[in-house]
């Protein structure tokens, strides 16, 4: 890696040189970029780790959390030897086992995710450097943020100070992703645990790529800089003024959306056009201008486009429905594609005159254009929206209730809609009721529908099934009116100093991060309900991405969303929206900063020690309740390597493997006591590293359990146990059957539950255990002073 970096900068150092003209000593020549390293901290053992550098750490985790593979297919079909039948312990033509094949698919997913974030970061960074110059300082917090890129500092061992400093970081990410992808070729890695180690590597790289993307856009585009009380933005279709021209942006790369805002600002017409968004572009455009509005998560794409409200649709990259052009054409909304990664077969108009493109949209009726210049795309979008809106009159493909009844009568009850539905929703039953005039069942489906449209593709009668659902629920759709706190970006160092102690000692029961996509088993509201419950219990709750939107789409009995009910500070009972997908790096960054700022552990290129600290002491848990994408897989993997467990919803079993601990195997739960060097039993904390819950209730009980760490003080453990026991009693019934595994001494027992827990301990042959200074790394055992 050092060589690769030198290639960029070309450094040459000569100790002695004899020539015809003179004798030289200690010459140093640098060509190209010169990195002014002002970071005084000594470099740790693993700067710029390669594929195998952190292998022993990964293997230590994987020895506890062995993969439980859940093949989604009996076969391997990745090469022309195949398809290979891997059932019954058979090996494929290349010799691969089912276990290795599953881990290989997990690695592929993690590589796709890491590549997507890193490519997003590269595109952003290149554009921002072109616009602002490579010397633009990184500034993600005017006050209170001195450790401004904790993931990059930890992994790469460098401290980036300008946009230009981020380029070699991405060079590193890209080289690692290329090598990781190569690992999945036929006849490379053959061992499933080594595949899994590389999954962790891909996840770690993913977090570096995400961090680069977000700190670059925060620094250059003036997003909120670690502000606990960043502004609230409108959320939901009901907040849109449909009398105005409306632009819809979908995707993840904010630059075209920023181009729209810039043009509106330059023309002084911000109040005349509604800029609305779906997916992370929506979150990031509200960070750029809090006048922009978030419509909802990915699952709102079909329903919002079909409503006819958006007059122009601008798409960039990632998680954009690939049939958007078709859907846009049906409602006569022009579409502008803005990413090389997503051209949709459209003609490239990047170098054409703006006036000509606008004219072709308005008079020529072209359905779409590819414009790879964000500023130009922004201007075209605004001008077209203003011209076309009066003519379009928000004409959608929504159907009337009368039409709904007529269409419903065509249904043959073949059940293919239900069999195509990811959530097995009783669609045919609801359509039958609608045919008889009862729309209530269809209306109920709206809440649980993930908006994928598979029901329509499957329908033999060509019924617009998804539109039948939204038609029945039209009052709900148009009254969705909520708010979301705009993404604040990183957590301040000062906040970390305040909460570091209470978190590590367990007095704040944990950090629970609701992240990821919207493939929920029972609708968005479950995320909001979980957020509210944990915030009320004084956990620190973080949100990001589609989950941040879902968290805001529900009101309490007083009519408040979680963002109005709780503060946005990183504190007990705070609900902290860090921002979009790429902002997830700040959640990992907060855990890393607890180790480096609060506990003063060396940060620079010192991955294992920091991860060991986080794993054993920081009670953080990720919840990706609707995880769907490969990016979510990579994000989760980055948390795993850092020792942070992740809970997913039931659809998460389709990621093909879990990482589960065995609480019944006592031999798995020993750590080194750094004080004595001896091995100490800690109980199964945290019990799992990657776990799919069946219901929201299961997830909440498991989250409370997974926040326990070996280092908890008795006061802290009692607090965590009180939450675990209370949630278990409420949702499952009775005291948890494994509670004796988490009590180390009588002081760990919650005071209000003393009698019942003590009785349980007596029934389970409980013995007192010491509380160690825990580590999995023998090198961290304190050396005895002579």
């Amino acid at each position, binding site marked *: 890696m050092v060589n690769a970096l030198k290639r960029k900068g070309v450094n040459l150092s000569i100790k002695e040189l004899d020539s015809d003209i003179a004798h030289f000593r200690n010459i140093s020549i640098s060509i190209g970029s010169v990195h002014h390293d002002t970071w005084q901290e000594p470099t740790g053992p693993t700067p710029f780790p390669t594929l195998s550098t952190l292998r022993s750490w990964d293997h230590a985790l994987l020895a506890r959390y062995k993969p439980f593979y859940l093949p989604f297919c009996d076969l391997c079909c990745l090469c022309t030897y195949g398809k290979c039948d891997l059932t019954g*312990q058979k090996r494929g033509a290349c010799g691969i086992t089912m276990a290795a094949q599953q881990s290989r698919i997990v690695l592929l997913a993690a590589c796709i995710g890491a590549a997507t974030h890193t490519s997003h970061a590269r595109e952003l960074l290149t554009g921002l450097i072109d616009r602002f110059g490579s010397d633009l300082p990184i500034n993600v917090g005017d006050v209170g943020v001195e450790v401004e890129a904790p993931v990059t500092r930890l992994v790469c061992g460098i401290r980036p100070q300008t946009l230009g400093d981020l380029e070699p970081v991405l060079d590193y990410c890209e080289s690692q992703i290329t090598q990781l992808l190569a690992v999945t070729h036929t006849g490379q890695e053959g061992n499933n645990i080594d595949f899994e180690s590389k999954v962790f590597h891909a996840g770690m790289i993913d977090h570096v790529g995400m961090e680069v993307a977000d700190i670059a856009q925060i620094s250059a585009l003036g997003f909120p800089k670690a502000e606990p009380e960043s502004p609230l933005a409108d959320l939901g279709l009901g907040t849109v003024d449909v009398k105005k021209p409306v632009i819809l942006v979908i995707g993840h790369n904010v630059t075209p959306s920023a181009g729209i805002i810039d043009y509106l600002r330059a023309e002084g017409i911000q109040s005349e056009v509604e800029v609305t968004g779906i997916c992370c572009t929506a979150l990031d455009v509200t960070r750029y201008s809090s006048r922009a509005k978030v419509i909802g998560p990915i699952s709102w794409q079909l329903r919002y486009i079909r409503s006819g409200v958006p007059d122009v649709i601008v798409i960039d990259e990632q998680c954009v429905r690939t049939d958007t052009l078709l859907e846009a054409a049906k409602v006569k909304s022009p579409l502008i594609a803005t990413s090389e990664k997503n051209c949709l077969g459209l003609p490239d108009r990047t170098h054409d005159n703006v006036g000509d493109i606008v004219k072709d949209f308005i008079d020529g009726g072209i359905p779409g254009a590819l414009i790879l210049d964000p500023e130009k795309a922004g201007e075209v979008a605004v001008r077209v929206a203003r011209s076309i809106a009066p003519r379009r009159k928000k004409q959608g493909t929504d159907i009337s209730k009368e039409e709904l009844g007529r269409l419903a009568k065509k249904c043959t009850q073949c059940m293919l809609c239900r*069999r195509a539905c*990811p959530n097995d929703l009783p669609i045919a039953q609801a359509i039958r009721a609608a045919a008889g005039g009862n729309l209530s069942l269809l209306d109920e489906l709206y809440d649980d529908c993930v908006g994928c449209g598979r029901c329509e593709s499957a329908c033999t009668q060509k019924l617009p099934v998804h539109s039948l659902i939204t038609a029945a629920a039209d009052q709900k759709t148009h009254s969705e009116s909520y708010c979301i706190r705009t993404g604040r970006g990183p957590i301040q160092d000062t906040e970390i100093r305040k909460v570091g102690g209470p978190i590590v000692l367990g007095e704040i029961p944990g950090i629970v991060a609701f992240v990821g996509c919207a493939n929920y088993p029972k609708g968005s509201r479950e995320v909001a309900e979980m957020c509210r419950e944990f915030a009320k219990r004084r956990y620190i709750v973080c949100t990001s991405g589609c989950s941040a939107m879902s968290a805001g789409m529900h009101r309490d009995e007083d009519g408040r969303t979680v963002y109005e009910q709780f503060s946005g500070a990183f504190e007990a009972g705070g609900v902290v929206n860090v921002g979009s997908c790429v902002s997830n790096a700040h959640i990992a960054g907060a855990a890393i900063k607890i180790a480096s700022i609060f506990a003063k552990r060396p940060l620079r290129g010192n991955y294992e020690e920091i991860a060991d600290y986080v794993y054993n002491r920081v009670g953080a848990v990720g919840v990706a309740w609707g995880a769907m994408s490969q990016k979510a897989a990579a994000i989760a993997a980055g948390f795993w390597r850092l020792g942070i467990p992740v809970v997913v919803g039931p659809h998460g079993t389709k990621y093909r493997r879990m990482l*589960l601990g065995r609480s019944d195997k006592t031999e798995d739960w020993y750590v080194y006591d750094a004080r004595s060097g001896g091995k100490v039993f800690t109980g199964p904390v945290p019990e799992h590293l990657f776990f799919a819950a*069946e219901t929201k209730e299961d997830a909440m009980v498991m989250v409370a359990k997974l926040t326990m760490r070996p280092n908890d003080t008795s006061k802290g453990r009692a607090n965590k146990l009180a939450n675990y026991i209370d949630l278990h009693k409420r949702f*499952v019934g009775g005291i948890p059957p494994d509670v004796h595994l988490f009590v180390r001494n009588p002081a760990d027992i919650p005071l209000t539950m003393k009698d019942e827990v003590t009785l349980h301990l007596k029934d389970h042959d409980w013995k007192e255990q010491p509380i160690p200074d825990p580590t999995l790394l023998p090198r961290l055992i304190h050396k005895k002073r002579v």
Partner: protein
Amino acid sequence: MPLNESWQTAEIPGPKKASLIIKPDIADAMIRRAKRPIMIVGHGIVEYDVEGLKLIDCLIEFATKAHIPVVVTASTNREFLNRGFTPAALMPAVDIGNRLTDPGWKGFDGKDAYDLAIFVGLPYYMEWTILSGLKHFAPNLKTMTLDCVYQPNASWSFPNSTIKDWVVNLKGIVDGLGD
């Protein structure tokens, strides 16, 4: 629809598919043959209430008659407790699935490995993936589902059935176990 077609149309596993329980006697024979059966019950069972018969009551009768320990995976536990039935264990679905792949695991009573796992009431796709894990990584275990939809990754599964037919089949299995 064909009897042995995956309920969720696209969830087709490959060459190894479940045999059909076309009549209750088949299930009874499998249960009688098993030395160490176990039943895993998900949260979906409380949703079924057909002609006055609650599925959970049918399962309690089934487990009691056949002396099969019941593992409850989710908040359904409360429903069992309300009926005076205490499950053998509470354990999340992926956790019990994982343990069943371990040939060295001696079960909740510490006596021996289970040889038949009967699943019912998990979300279709989650049961599908867990049964796939067991199909591939628990070679000594037979699996059976009592749901009314075809689960291709089980060793034995009901076909896709109407609720009425399904109830008749379940009653038939319970009756076949004798008193």
